[in-house]
């Protein structure tokens, strides 16, 4: 399946994945971030409850230096 993540297309095996699994695949586990799927925020409590499907648009954001 192909997922749009932060503007890039990434290809993964299988037909769906949870946010929790995706984070591990992206080597982001242990980091602090928030995730949006198709414009909707996925609450942290739902990271292992909902699925990301082929064609979904995912944004993974964090805090950086800024004024």
């Amino acid at each position, binding site marked *: 399946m192909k997922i749009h993540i932060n*503007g890039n297309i990434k290809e993964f095996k299988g037909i769906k994945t949870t946010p929790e699994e995706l984070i591990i695949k992206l080597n*982001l586990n242990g980091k*602090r971030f*928030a995730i*949006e799927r198709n414009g909707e925020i996925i609450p942290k409590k739902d990271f292992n409850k909902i699925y990301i499907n082929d064609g979904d648009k995912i*944004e993974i954001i964090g*805090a*950086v230096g*800024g*004024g």
Partner: protein
Amino acid sequence: MVDKISNTSDDLTIAGLSFKSRLLIGTGKYNSFKETRSAIDASQSEIVTVAIRRVNLGQSPDEASLLDFIPPEQFTYLPNTAGCYSSDEAIRTLRLARELLDGHNLVKLEVLGDPDTLYPNVVETIKAAKILIKDGFDVMVYTSDDPIIAKQLEEIGCCAIMPLASLIGSGMGILNPWNLEIIIDKANVPVIVDAGVGTASDATIAMELGCDGILMNTAIALAHNPILMASAMRKAIESGREAFLAGRMEKKPYRASPSSPVKGLIK
């Protein structure tokens, strides 16, 4: 800061939160996270702004992040909407920030109107502020130095009004003290100068006008010695605040007044 004479505390209160420091600082443009942290320590700031951006997907698992150096448990984070040019973008960014920071509601709203001047689009700002406040956010708002817009933002329910003193990152100082004074005079919420300070005397001037605090980034980060400048800004703000509270002498442009006794001169 403690008023040493009357021994009463002079805390800055924003949205029910009390702060000793009236200096709020941004975390952008530093050479390293270590330098950012050292500057914050030297400034004794309690509120730090951060930007919300896409995470770097190619990073290694042990790559350090800003949050490692400035733990959100030790500071009051102020996520901003820098780079947003519409109310929709700003609202989306701050909702993500709230999720990122576990329900943290205190935010800095800025909706820009022009990439060259970074001048605020006050129409979009007002639109975003209304929606965010309804959604439970405590909104500190970056705006122009227009007193009418400042008052409207307060009436909507913004918890702090943050007018520019000059353009973001310009270091041009306090260009329109008259407008800032009108805004301060009319406001019932904290007024925090949020752009344009270039050096310590600018910060003191703003505080002497009666501003409740100053938010700055570039003046510290781009100083030749950011940590020393952070310390200078802390002192400048304390100094300006004390001078404001003390109340300056009346200006007498055409008549001198000797400080030494006129009686008893040796003749």
